[in-house]
């Protein structure tokens, strides 16, 4: 996602382009005013990317900025600023870091505080939230920020998908959810039209959505090259290479990035170049956002011959043909179908294995396809969205694989006070010992 204090060597040269992407997204918010564009504080994986891109709205990604602050180990001053107005340290630290920054910027009359990582972000013209089946901060964060930016309008849409229930066929409920999500996206368009004073160009939206679909396909084609042994790219890189998909969906730049990455991975495979030499153990990053201030831990794994050929985190797409989307001429309905079918993609598999869940089926699919010997989860204390329920996933996985080595690391996404490098490395070492024993037993 971003560079940290001590530069992290990357396994692919393409990933080295990512800081430019991230910096470009931040600076786009600062340039927007002079270009006559509106800026929207926005959240990733909200289904609103194409609407913003098609309307020339510049997204200000709060999660990205907080991640940059964390990677640069420069988040504490913003966390403390938020805390000074009674935002608890137990709340989402993506949010509190960003709110602290916003509070400081307001005190400076809208100018980013001096020394803000990569210049900071511009004051938004609107805030777009989203109520989902994950992440309350996606609508509480903009609401909380509005307390300091009272003239900035907040719009919250609601994008759901059928909840998992082993006794219910979710296909029976899909139409209700797609209709609702489509209507909510239409409300989002109306709000954006009101703030920008411009009408949506529906042909442009359709073309943007088509480009997103192509990018989803290319992303998966590229990442599936990592099935190769030795893997040409691991999760340490993927935490960077997810940026175009996650923050620049619906742009040609994002698509082109994966063209380059795919070519590089194909070349590495042809040359027999892997992340670790020798590659001893293949492990899945099964769930959890990373500690952005400690991405170097992936190198620690790599240095011991452990690679992560696959991760669930930030793999926020699937091959379009596998989702079997019904045809529609309405780009918003297409986004809604893509949304619902993506989130429910592993439901049918879970229904076939009593006691399993879709999240676990997804992990199982990757363990099998990428030939993994173990699983690592990361539990971030300030984020319930991605990290509550991990213990249940790990326990279910154990029911299927019995002795599969599993490590649940504990830390945070932004707050470095939770992190102890020596303890973390000790836990990793112990995990690697169990991997060795497991692999020996497997023969």
């Amino acid at each position, binding site marked *: 996602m971003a560079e940290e204090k001590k530069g992290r060597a990357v396994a692919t040269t393409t990933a080295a382009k990512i800081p430019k992407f991230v910096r470009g997204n931040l600076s786009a918010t600062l340039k927007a005013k002079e270009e006559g564009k509106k800026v929207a504080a926005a959240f990733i994986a909200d289904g609103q990317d194409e609407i913003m891109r098609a309307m020339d709205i510049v997204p200000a990604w709060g999660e990205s900025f907080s991640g940059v602050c964390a990677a640069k180990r420069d988040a504490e001053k913003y966390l403390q600023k938020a805390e000074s107005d*009674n*935002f608890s340290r137990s*709340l989402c630290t993506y949010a509190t870091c960003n709110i602290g920054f916003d509070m400081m910027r307001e005190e400076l009359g809208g100018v980013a505080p001096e020394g803000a990582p990569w210049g900071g972000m511009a004051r938004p013209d609107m805030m777009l939230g989203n*109520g989902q089946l994950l*992440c309350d901060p996606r609508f509480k964060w903009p609401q909380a920020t509005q307390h300091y930016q009272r003239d900035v309008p907040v719009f919250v849409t609601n994008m759901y998908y059928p909840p*998992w229930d082993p006794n219910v066929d979710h296909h029976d409920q899909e139409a209700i959810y797609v209709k609702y999500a489509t*209507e909510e996206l239409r*409300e989002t368009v109306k709000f954006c039209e009101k703030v920008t004073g411009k009408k949506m160009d529906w042909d442009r939206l359709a073309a943007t959505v088509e480009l997103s679909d192509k990018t989803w396909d290319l992303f998966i084609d590229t990442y599936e090259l990592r099935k190769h042994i030795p893997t040409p790219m691991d999760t340490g890189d993927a935490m960077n290479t997810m940026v175009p998909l996650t923050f620049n969906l619906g742009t040609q730049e994002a698509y082109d990035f994966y063209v380059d990455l795919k070519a590089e991975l194909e070349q590495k495979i042809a040359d027999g170049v892997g992340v670790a030499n020798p590659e001893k153990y293949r492990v899945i990053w099964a769930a959890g956002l990373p500690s952005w201030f400690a991405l170097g831990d992936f190198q620690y794994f790599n240095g011991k011959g452990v690679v992560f050929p696959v991760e669930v985190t930030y793999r926020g797409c699937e091959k379009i043909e596998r989702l079997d989307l019904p045809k529609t001429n309405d780009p918003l309905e297409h986004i809604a179908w893509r949304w619902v079918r993506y989130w429910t993609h592993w439901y049918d598999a879970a229904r076939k294995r009593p006691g399993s869940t879709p999240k676990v089926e997804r992990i199982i699919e990757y363990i099998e396809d990428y030939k993994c010997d173990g699983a690592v989860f990361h539990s971030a204390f300030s984020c319930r969205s991605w990290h509550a329920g991990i213990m249940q996933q790990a326990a279910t996985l154990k029911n299927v694989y019995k002795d599969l080595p599993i490590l649940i690391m504990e830390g945070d996404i932004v707050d470095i006070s939770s992190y102890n490098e020596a303890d973390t490395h000790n836990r990793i070492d112990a995990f690697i010992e169990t991997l060795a024993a497991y692999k020996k037993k497997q023969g």
Partner: protein
Amino acid sequence: MTELRDGNGLAAAEKLYTQYGSRARELKASGKKVIGYLSALGPVEIMTAAGVVPIRLKGNVSEAISKGDAYMESIVCPFVRNVFDAAVKGKYDFLDGMVLPHQCDSIDRTNETWSYTLKLPYWHFLNVPHVTDDPSITFMKEILRIFIGTLEKFTGTKITDEAIANAVKAHNENRKLMRELYDLRKSNPPPISGTEMMKVLVAAMSLPVDESSALIKAVTKEVKERKPAAGKPAAKRIMLIGDQIDDVAVIEAIESAGAYLVMEDLSIGAKMYWEDVDATADPVQGIAERYLRKLKIPTTFVGSADTYEGILDERFGQMKKYVNEFKVDGAILFIYKYCDPYGFEVPAIKSYVEAAGAPVLYLEDEYSTSSLARVKTRIEAFLEMIA
């Protein structure tokens, strides 16, 4: 249930409070099906119409979490963890099923942990939206109809619109009775203590609606018949704000320091009882509107007013009203650790209620009495400050 006689409403409430779930257990033994639910979003009207016994689940603040942590992360809301722990330990072994309304991440993201661990015969996750626009009302009606369908399948009985309309009437009557009891607290000194009121609120949420109404009536009659207390007219009148505070520990800390708890905006209290379900041709419409548009909880996003001040009125206007009507001298905002929905509201609530004329003490704590001494010290200092 303890037979209600003149003058024993509070004693009955005390018993139901200390032996939480005892009536549901009795009804289960008599052949009734009992469904537990979490949060103010549990649509009790539909459960009542289905002929099941709804019981809102609570934990035990005096009991350490000892078994639940083997299944559920410690970053989850301490209230949710505590209730889950109680369920794992068998405190709710009389349940036939559970409804988890989609209130917050701590509920939503642990749905599978609950259902796969407890393995109850009936389970339903009610996917309540976070926004209140027209498409959301339509969607809410759809998911309520799905919920009705699952209950029909479970009980083997059709839930008619007439049964739902009757349940709506019964629950509206129940809310009206509770509001009448709240009204008595406007006196100075109030004829019912905050501690007593908490026991009534907790007892009420453990009973079928008709029994709950009978209890409230009995308590109200008993309280009205009390001789005016000599009291301490100068004692400070406090309001408590938070989610599911369902134990007397914090309230005793307030009242033992010489103040009166005269009002609260809690999810088991005023939030539950202040707004009725409108009688609509399609009874599900009224229920959808009540839970989505009338219930003031932080996981329902509200923000349609043109100005920020107007938005604050939409979100917290009831608190200002309570400050004025109940002559509140100070408010305690008691938020559980790891609670994003309430945690992100703290600066807004604090400044709003203070602007309404009541100084605010903000406390962040666990769902546990382990830190009660510290809480008590903070409350005492606050009361001294506003004296």
